[in-house]
């Protein structure tokens, strides 16, 4: 009887989900499915995934908007996003439709030519119980990516589900509860579809209930069945990984969250992910001694067929300062003297150090410092990273000034690589903060936090918070091509195009177009709020469009005291601005 009642309730709930999940549903006629071939070779006019292509380059081959025409850009349309939140959205475009995810897992489909709403899907989270404060907090972020595949839109949600929508009308097709949100699991990173699998990674790996398990996972794209999972803090196949945690068994380990959607190499069927910091932050608290706490702050190369680790490289061992290294991994191919070089290029962590690895072997190739940092003392020719042990607290309350800060250096804002100029463009912030392990027992006996961070401040002698760093990249070195410094911090990801331009923006609400070769600013426009999310571009009916997200920015607010003459808006203003050239110019 009880079971029957439960079934009825469940059915009623499901029906409610189906009914309430879609607020508007006008529908798209003749939607052309996104094929596997398209994902492998994205049409120039589309922007099919997180960073445009599997290689995560954030590069578009479109060139109608170029050095000669960019000054003529005009506003085509603008759109206020569905809810306020932290702006980290990554718009996608296919078939003339823009798919836009906002916070609380709301997805909107807009006519990419006019900005007219076609449908909206509102994920029906269960009423978030009070023990879900972390998920509530995470749901407020504008999630950074969704995925398109066949006639579906795929998203990952704050309540640890994979949700699949019908792309033409936004209706729910199926959803899968991947992990238990009651333990604290929550998605903050979007999915990647490759080899018939939905590949993504879970967050919430620093909550009590998730001890010992943080996963990159693959699910069948059609059924949602789990194909494999890889645990970033407990790899029984690698004794070195286990030993790196010292005396700490898996059930007392936390952290290792992959925060940014991975890259994929179809040629080798390999996916590449970055992993974040260990928990607790301080080794004094976590009990791991001088262990390197693998695979935190590492790049992982995983076989997409099996989920097995091919190789790993740790960018920051023994992290004590929440300088996690989960950010975008970019795949770069360069033909030099008839030899094809397959690189993985990244500024993986908050300390802003750029790395290049051989992506087939994981071999370290080179590294290059960008912003001021004091945590890495040196990196050997074989890639062994030596940290500054003087900055490790040996007593509770012992404070050190750490550069960069917990807010970066580098943060979630992704850089882009341009094959046109063989340059990697990285948005960065100059910042330091004090760090001290401590006991922050808020509600008595129930601790939440073991490190105290001081205010973000500029490094001594530096007056500009913002840095746009262009690096010339090849298999043997990464050298500074140019730098553009600014008082306000950089707040958006950047976009490189075949028009010789790179687009990005800052806390002062200015979106800029730089000349990839020189760093000269060729176009600038002040908008309503700090520039955010992931700028992208697409083409419809022979016209190139440039989409710029704006809105509430943690990258702006965390260091705004460094540029007090630039007031931040008191409203979030989360919006999409879309520019194009007048007909005569294009």
């Amino acid at each position, binding site marked *: 009887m009880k079971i029957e009642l439960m079934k009825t309730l469940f059915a009623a709930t499901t029906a409610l989900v189906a009914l309430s999940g879609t607020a508007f549903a006008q529908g798209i006629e003749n939607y052309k499915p996104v094929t596997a071939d398209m994902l492998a070779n994205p049409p120039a006019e589309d922007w099919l995934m997180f960073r445009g292509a599997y290689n995560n380059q954030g590069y578009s081959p479109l060139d109608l908007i170029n050095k000669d025409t960019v000054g003529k850009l005009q506003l085509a349309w603008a759109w206020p996003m569905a809810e*306020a*939140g*932290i702006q980290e959205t990554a718009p996608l475009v296919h078939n003339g439709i823009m798919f836009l995810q906002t916070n609380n897992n709301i997805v909107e489909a807009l006519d990419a030519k006019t900005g007219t709403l076609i449908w909206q899907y509102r994920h029906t989270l269960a009423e978030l*119980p*009070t*023990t*879900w*404060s*972390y*998920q*509530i*907090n995470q749901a*407020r*972020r504008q999630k950074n990516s969704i995925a398109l595949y066949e006639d579906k839109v795929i998203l990952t949600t704050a309540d640890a589900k994979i949700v699949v929508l019908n792309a033409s009308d936004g209706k729910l097709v199926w959803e899968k509860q991947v992990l238990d949100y009651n333990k604290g699991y929550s998605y903050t990173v979007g999915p990647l579809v490759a080899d018939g699998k939905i590949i993504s990674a879970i967050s919430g*790996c*620093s*909550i*009590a209930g998730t*001890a010992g398990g943080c996963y990159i996972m693959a699910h069948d794209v059609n059924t949602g069945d789990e194909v494999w999972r890889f645990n970033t803090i407990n790899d029984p196949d690698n004794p070195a990984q286990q030993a790196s945690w010292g*005396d700490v068994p898996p*059930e*007392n380990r*936390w952290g290792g969250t992959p925060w940014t959607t991975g890259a994929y190499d179809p040629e080798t069927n390999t996916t590449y992910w970055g992993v974040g*910091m260990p*928990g*607790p932050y301080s080794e*004094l*608290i976590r*009990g791991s001694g001088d262990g390197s706490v693998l695979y935190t702050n590492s790049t992982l190369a995983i076989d997409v067929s099996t989920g097995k680790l091919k190789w790993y490289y740790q960018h920051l061992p023994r992290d004590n300062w*929440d300088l996690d290294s989960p950010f975008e991994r970019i795949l770069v191919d360069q033909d030099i003297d008839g030899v094809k070089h397959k690189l993985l290029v990244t500024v993986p962590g908050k300390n802003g150090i750029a790395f290049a690895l051989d992506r087939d072997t994981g071999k370290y190739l080179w590294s290059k410092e960008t912003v001021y940092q004091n945590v890495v003392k040196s990196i050997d020719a074989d890639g062994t990273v030596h940290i500054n042990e003087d900055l490790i607290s*040996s*007593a*509770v309350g012992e404070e050190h000034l750490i550069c960069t800060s*917990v807010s970066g250096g580098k943060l*979630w804002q992704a850089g882009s690589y341009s094959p046109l100029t063989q340059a990697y463009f990285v948005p960065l912030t100059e910042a330091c*903060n004090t760090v001290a392990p*401590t*006991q*922050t*027992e*808020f*509600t*008595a*006996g129930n*601790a*939440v*936090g*073991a*490190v*105290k*961070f*001081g205010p973000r401040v500029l490094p001594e002698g530096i007056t500009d918070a913002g840095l746009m760093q262009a690096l010339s990249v090849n298999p043997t070195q990464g050298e500074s091509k140019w730098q553009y410094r600014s008082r306000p911090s950089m707040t958006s990801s950047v976009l490189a195009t075949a028009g010789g331009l790179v687009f990005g923006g800052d806390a002062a609400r200015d979106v800029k177009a730089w000349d990839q070769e020189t760093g000269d600013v060729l176009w600038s426009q002040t908008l309503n709020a700090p520039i955010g999310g992931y700028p992208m571009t697409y083409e419809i009916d022979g016209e190139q469009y440039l989409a710029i997200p704006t809105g*509430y920015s*943690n990258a702006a*607010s*965390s260091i705004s*005291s460094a540029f007090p003459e630039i007031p931040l808006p*008191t409203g*979030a203003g*989360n919006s999409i601005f879309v520019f194009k050239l007048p007909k005569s110019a294009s």
Partner: protein
Amino acid sequence: MLRFVAPALFLLGTGVAFAQTSGIPPEELTNTRRQAGDSITVCVDATGQSRAFDLDVAQAIGDALFLQVKPIEGFGGFPVNGDGFMDELTLAMNNTCDLFMGVSVSTEVQVSEVFSITRPYVTIPFVLAVANSDWQKLADIPLDQRLGTAMSSIGEMTYITWAQQRAKSERWVRLPYADPDLMASRVLDGTIAGMILWQPTLAKLRADRPDAQKLRTIATDPVAETAIRVGALVSSRDSFLRNQVDQAIDALVADGTIQGLLDKHHYLGHAGE
């Protein structure tokens, strides 16, 4: 008002640990004056260790002030690094709670412009719990055994501070636990010899788990005893309430009400500071 809230948020954002979140979009913060009449909204941490006791104290405070108490399950479920914690606390104290009970009053307490902290209404110790009946104090436990500590707690801090002053061979290996249930299981199965945790947490384990009756407390020698002073947060929107609550706490400590509640919940410690 928002002009003042924005810098306050910056201060908050800088004070706590976070990995990938920071700050609160301004729209999330209400800018209204509560029309509460003769009632106060009292929040507790839903995952707090002394929730029922704290709500009893809140009711006593309400009774003393002739105010109706509206209890609300506050928030909980934060990462061990505190990610997002101050965001949600700021929202709770700005938008919802007049009082937030069960707050640890220490030098490490979070500070903010959206709340102030009352004087402590109770002081409760950390204890060392073991299952082995041969041990009467921490020093009786062989050094090759391991200990568990409630992660990021003041009790853990005391142990770490002591241990750091000794050679590795002269101290116990310590493992941090965020889940007291799991830590208790590991004491009972022998994985760790004992656990240092807040006494109300042990009282709750004993109440919830029959097998936890095997756990008993022993002296922490040679590590010093540690206790938490427990108070409440009061919304900065009502500074008058802060004074009233402090006066009520004084009265409840003096007339034995708090001690009575300690006894009711089988808590060690004493009323007030």
